[in-house]
Structures are given as structure tokens and as C-alpha cells.
């Protein structure tokens, strides 16, 4: 979207067909899909940025750090993906693109933990996780009390083992922002690399755009409009998935091939409808009771609901 241009925003989607044989295992997990997607998003944003001039902001939903480092399933693919991801970020830095990750309703409490560590005497630090000074307090709550409408917090540097690979200008930082107002705050966390933090113009531009984008969504559900649209376009609904499965099945069968069978468990789950159960009128359930035994429910011979 070119803000203020009056031009129709552009939409680009990339589809990649992956064959299961490419992978060592016979199962392609959700976390593997997410990893591939996160890397592809950054690469795509970099590619699209080539067509534009001026101030360019590349925003993704979710943390800036590539997720998957603690996921054993992905361990084999993760290093390669991280290498590609870091390369994409480096290229963005070279092109002076403002990169950011938007986390809606953040659950991490890094600032609260920082305050707990700062408030704990040196000799008690080893127990800081057990003896929490601010137990029950969250970053979200804290900043909802502090930040006024559209204000942002100070910028913090992320200190985590998993983020050590993001070195120098790629080092991950974050700030909190209130895209709502004082009475109804909506706190989000924005992850940014160091090169954005060190450039006040970039930081302010990102802040400003996030406020404007969230305002587009109206008064009750402030969330960056472009991220919502990206999600709307990308999502594959259950119904669409079923339709694709049907199309594939028809094509496979028409070529004389065979389809795998549903498991008996899944077949039972897919059964439609439910029979009306009769309420037992008296006595214990059991085949010897006077009413007899009907579909596992005892019914009185003269009375049923």
C-alpha cells in the first residue's frame, strides 16, 4: 500500500507445491510449514521492495525472531532456514528498509522480568524465578497503565540465547505501543532490528504507520489493516481445504490410482447426525431391566421422551 497515493494496494501471492518425498519423513508438520512460511514472507517482502522507492516498511505479523529454534522436529531444517532468513534481513538493512514484527496481545513478560531482576538483591538472584517480586504482573497490563493513546514505550534489547544469532545491526529489539486509547488500551509489541532502533526517523515512521493502520480498522478492533488483509487473503478455510481434497481425489481416481483410506476412528467421527436419546424413566441401566435395551439406552416400554 502506498499511503496517501490514492493507488489501489497490490496483492501478491506465491504458491509452492511441495512433494512429501522431498522430506525425510512421511509427515510435514505444522511447525515445518510455519518455518518455511516465515522465511518466505521475509524474502517476498524483500523482493517486492525492489519496485518501490522512498520510505519502505516491511511488516510481518508475529515476532521478528524466526521461530523454531527450540522445536526438535525442525532442528534439521532450522539452520538452513535461519541462514536464509538472516540473509534476507541483511539485504533489507542494505536497502534501508524498515523491518518490523507486530505482536498483537503479547504474552511475553520480558520487561516485568527485567524489573524483577533489577529489584532483587545480588545474593538472591539465583532464586529470582521462585521468589518473584512482581508475580501476576504482565507486560501487557503494565504498559496498558502507562502508555497513553498511540504512545510507545522505550526500546528494549532482547536478551535471549535463541536470539544470539541476530548480531550487530540485526540484533532484535522491541517496544510496546498503545494503538488504542487511555480508557481502552490495546497494547502490542513491535520487534525491530538494531538498524531501525538507531535511526530515529525510521523508528518514528514505523510508529506513525502502525498508529494509522490500526485506526483504519475502526474504534473497537485496532489492528494494522494491511496485516489483517494479508491474513484474510492467505487463510485457507476448512471448507476450501475440503474442496481441494475432493478435487485431488477425483483427479487421482480418474487416472486409475487408488486413494488411501480413512482410519476407522476418523470415519466414525465423520458420521453425521445424532439420534435422539430417550431419558430413562426409572431404575438402573441394564439389559435385564423391564424396558429392554435400545441402542445402549434403557427406555421404559410405555414412556419415552
Amino acid at each position, binding site marked *: 500500500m502506498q499511503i496517501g497515493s*490514492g493507488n*489501489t*494496494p497490490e496483492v501478491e501471492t506465491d504458491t509452492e507445491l511441495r512433494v512429501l518425498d522431498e522430506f525425510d519423513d512421511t509427515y510435514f508438520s505444522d511447525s515445518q510449514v510455519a518455518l518455511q512460511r516465515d522465511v518466505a514472507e521475509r524474502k517476498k517482502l524483500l523482493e517486492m521492495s525492489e519496485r518501490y522507492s522512498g520510505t519502505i516498511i516491511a511488516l510481518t505479523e508475529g515476532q521478528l525472531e524466526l521461530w523454531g529454534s527450540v522445536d526438535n522436529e525442525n532442528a534439521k531444517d532450522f539452520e538452513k532456514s535461519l541462514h536464509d532468513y538472516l540473509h534476507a534481513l541483511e539485504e533489507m538493512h542494505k536497502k534501508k528498509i524498515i523491518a518490523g514484527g507486530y505482536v498483537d496481545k503479547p504474552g511475553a513478560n520480558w520487561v516485568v522480568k527485567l524489573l524483577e531482576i533489577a529489584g532483587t538483591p545480588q545474593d538472591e538472584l539465583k532464586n529470582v524465578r521462585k521468589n518473584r517480586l512482581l508475580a501476576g504482573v504482565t507486560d501487557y497490563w503494565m504498559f496498558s497503565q502507562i502508555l497513553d493513546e498511540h504512545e510507545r514505550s522505550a526500546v528494549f534489547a532482547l536478551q535471549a540465547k535463541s536470539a544470539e544469532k541476530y548480531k550487530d545491526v540485526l540484533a532484535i529489539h522491541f517496544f510496546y505501543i498503545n494503538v488504542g486509547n487511555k480508557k481502552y488500551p490495546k497494547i502490542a509489541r513491535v520487534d525491530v532490528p538494531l538498524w531501525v532502533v538507531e535511526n530515529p526517523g525510521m523508528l518514528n515512521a514505523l510508529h506513525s504507520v502502525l498508529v494509522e493502520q490500526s485506526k*483504519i480498522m*475502526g474504534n473497537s478492533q485496532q489492528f494494522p489493516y494491511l496485516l489483517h488483509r494479508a491474513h484474510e487473503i492467505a487463510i485457507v478455510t476448512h471448507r476450501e481445504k475440503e474442496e481441494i481434497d475432493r478435487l485431488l481425489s477425483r483427479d487421482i481416481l480418474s487416472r486409475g490410482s487408488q486413494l488411501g483410506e480413512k482410519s476407522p476412528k476418523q470415519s466414525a467421527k465423520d458420521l453425521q447426525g445424532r439420534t435422539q436419546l430417550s431419558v430413562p424413566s426409572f431404575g438402573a441401566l441394564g439389559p435385564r431391566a423391564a424396558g429392554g435395551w435400545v441402542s445402549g439406552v434403557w427406555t421404559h416400554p410405555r414412556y419415552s421422551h
Partner: protein
Amino acid sequence: MYGLIHDIHIDDDGLVRQLVTADGVSEEVMKDNRERRIVPVEMSVLAVGYEQDGKVHHLLPPRPPLSLDVIYLCEDKDMVRFTEKFGYFRHILNGKDVPVGEVLAAHILQAGKARGADGTRWIESATQEVITLLRDDYPTLMSVLGALADIS
């Protein structure tokens, strides 16, 4: 297959309802919603006949449209060919949940225009046919004639 579109509606769009609560909608957002978003439009089509081997039949089609069949507007020449006779009027008059008077009036106006100079004569013949078909249904006849009056 030939049919008449008699109902176009747009299902509830939650995003648009939310956007209008904001102070002003920018041109980029408006264009995005008009040109880029798939709007949940539903159209109802009343089948009135079909063509097979070059011959037009004013009977109900032998099968319904297949999934993903393309629907497109008739050109004038197709309209003229299909409406040479009035046998298909009964499908419109018998249509359930169809605003009979409005659909017939709109169709007669459109078919008349497709005929150019010969349009007026065709409209008169079509109106006469409607009167004949509805001679035993006075309320519907009055409703249809009221709608037809608006196009004359």
C-alpha cells in the same frame, strides 16, 4: 442454459462494517475493498430455457449447471433468438420467491431494447401474452401491469 437474474445480494461483510466506524476511509482502503477483495455476492437465477443443437427450447434445462460453469450476460442477438416466442413466460409467472411483476417488466424492457426498431411491437405482443396468461389471476395481473406501466 438461459436464465433471468432476479436477486443480487451481498452477504454481511464484517470488515466493511468495521471500517465504516473509523473516522474517514482513505482512498487506498476504499479501492482495496472494491478492487481487491472478493465480495460475497450471491445471485439467484431463474432458469427459463436452454439451447441444444442450435434449437431453443422454453423448457426447464435437462440438468442444472455444473460447478464452476461460467455465467455471462446474453448478447442482443441471443436475446432476440430466445425471445421469439413467449413460452418461457410461464416459468417467470410460476417462479417461487420471485418478484414476478418487477422481473417481467425488467426483462420485457431489456428484450425490447435488444430488438431495436422492432422493440415496441414486441413489447406490445409480450404484454398481450402476459394478460392472456394471467386472465384468471387478477391480483397478479394488476401487479404485473403496474410494473409494465413503468416501462412504457
